[in-house]
């Protein structure tokens, strides 16, 4: 009854907090890498995720080209549209987090992870991090498409980088909301249906594609307070300068740079404070 395989695994859970954090980080990176490898093995998923933003850019860019009189003075529609598309894309892209969890749950991979002595936070952090990486690639391609249809960053390199950071932060935040949806609903079909039923109104009742001033009065109230509008305005400031958020009637900016920055960060922080613990709780409570 002697074991032929020596048992050399370090079979102790780390005891110090520092060691635990280090292991959680390492585990998170391992899971994120696995997710990204999966993405390269099934490139069709990424390609289909690309089709949607290309479609949106082309449809909005050329259909609504000269439809709006409420645009900021001197700003072409393509300059108004693209920052909105970037933000919209971050929200749409986050649905892959929920689908990733639903897929892994269905295949039993989450069970495999949960039976291993790895950090429990690593599965969540790994997924949101790999989706962040994927969203970065997607954003780069969408910016390129923007350049092909006439969009230009007009406010310097630093602000362009700021826009990229903002859009990625928004995408990361919605990945955690999406994680909650995936872990709560568990089924791919249910997740897909549920994700778009809330994302569509949230994105469309905002300044993402069209100026708020042209909407029905009661919707304007909702749209102006929608965080998506705040992020889109922030993105417009970063890409077009103050002209990007100037009101077409009064000729004055709808907000200051600082005001937009603070509101953008507060919304992101607030949503993370609610949804990160909720996602962790849902993961712990999985059956």
């Amino acid at each position: 009854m002697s074991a032929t395989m020596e048992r050399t695994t370090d079979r102790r859970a780390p005891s110090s907090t520092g060691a635990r954090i280090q292991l959680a980080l390492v585990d998170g990176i391992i899971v994120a890498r696995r997710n990204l490898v999966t993405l390269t093995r099934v490139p069709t998923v990424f390609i289909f995720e690309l089709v949607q933003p290309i479609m949106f850019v082309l449809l909005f860019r050329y259909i609504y080209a000269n439809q709006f009189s409420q645009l900021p003075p001197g700003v072409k529609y393509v300059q108004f549209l693209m920052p909105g598309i970037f933000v919209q894309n971050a929200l749409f892209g986050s649905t892959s987090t929920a689908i990733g969890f639903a897929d892994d749950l269905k295949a039993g991979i989450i069970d495999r992870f949960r039976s291993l002595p790895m950090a429990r936070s690593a599965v969540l952090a790994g997924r949101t991090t790999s989706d962040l990486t994927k969203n970065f690639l997607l954003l780069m391609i969408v910016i390129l498409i923007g350049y092909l249809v006439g969009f230009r960053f007009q406010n310097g390199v630093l602000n362009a980088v700021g826009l990229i950071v903002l859009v990625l932060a928004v995408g990361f935040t919605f990945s955690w909301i999406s994680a909650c949806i995936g872990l709560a609903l568990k089924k791919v079909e249910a997740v897909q249906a549920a994700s778009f039923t809330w994302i569509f109104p949230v994105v469309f009742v905002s300044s993402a594609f069209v100026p708020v001033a042209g909407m029905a009065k009661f919707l304007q109230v909702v749209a102006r307070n929608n965080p998506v509008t705040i992020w889109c305005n922030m993105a417009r400031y970063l890409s077009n300068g103050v002209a990007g958020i100037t009101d077409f009637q009064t000729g004055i900016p709808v907000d200051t740079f600082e005001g937009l920055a603070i509101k953008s960060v507060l919304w992101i922080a607030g949503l993370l404070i609610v949804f990160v613990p909720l996602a962790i709780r849902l993961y712990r409570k999985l059956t």
Partner: protein
Amino acid sequence: MTRLMGDPIIRTEALVKSFGAVEALKGVDLEVEKGAVYGLLGPNGAGKTTAVRILTTLLQPTSGRAEVDGLDSVRDAEELRFRIGLAGQSAAVDENLTGLENLELVGRLYHLPKEEARRRSIEVLERFDLADAAGRAAKTYSGGMRRRLDLAASLVGRPDVLFLDEPTTGLDPRSRIDVWDFIRELQNEGTTLLLTTQYLEEADLLADKIGVMDVGTIIAEGTSDELKDRIGGEVLELHVEDRADVARVLETMQGIGAGEPTADHDERRVRIPVGNNGPAILLDSVRRLDEAHIRLIDIALHRPTLDDVFLSLTGRGAEHDADPDAAPAGRSKRRRDRRRKDDG
């Protein structure tokens, strides 16, 4: 209960698990000795998987406790996960990764250094005859290969205790025999195994000790022989041509055996425990049936199978009895032939 190989390494006490109004486990007490193979046998919905999921820390019990190697499944969950491996329907492999990548991933998550994870992965792949397929995505694997990879993944951490949740469900007969061989090998190396199965034959072949589970409780426990002894010696099984004859057989055979006959009307079979008096009772029953003009397809004496045990314990067959796959060895030739055909 006889002690098999030493101290219990798996232990549950009054384990209860409810899902809403449904009580999946209704107080399970279980002890598995170190180095033993314990078979948890029962039909679908008996609670086997729930018990495994609690022991492997995937589920928290509603009440009661579960321990592996003295570690509590709730309080010491993290430490416990270092000692166990899990394979079968509860855990799976990533089909987009190659066989090697799957195992390396598991090894890394056991906190093995990169080189060690790779070394062990290659070793385990070779052992499971998957070395040639190591560089292929798991989605190109056959069902049997996938199950082997799944088993391999559960061994990368070199666990003391291995949980196999229905390790052969859905496998073709050839792959099933392969899995059985691996299980025997692991047992010889001193790994403690808890396996769940719906296949009576499987528990009979592999397990040192069998717990028969039904609707959330263990209704009987013992070695295969102990369980068979419970229903007393041999069984006379009759298979009639006409469904209506089943009742007539029961009437004709009144008082002939050592225990109450049981009947399966759909299968048109009657089973009679005959103790150690098989041949005499066989002759007597042939005479009686002839006088009653009952036409038989088959009549045979056999050592009781776990099917018979389940029948005598619950008054009904294991749910899976209708599945030809579950037919234990030693049935009539006709039945075996049908099984082969269905498997092919």
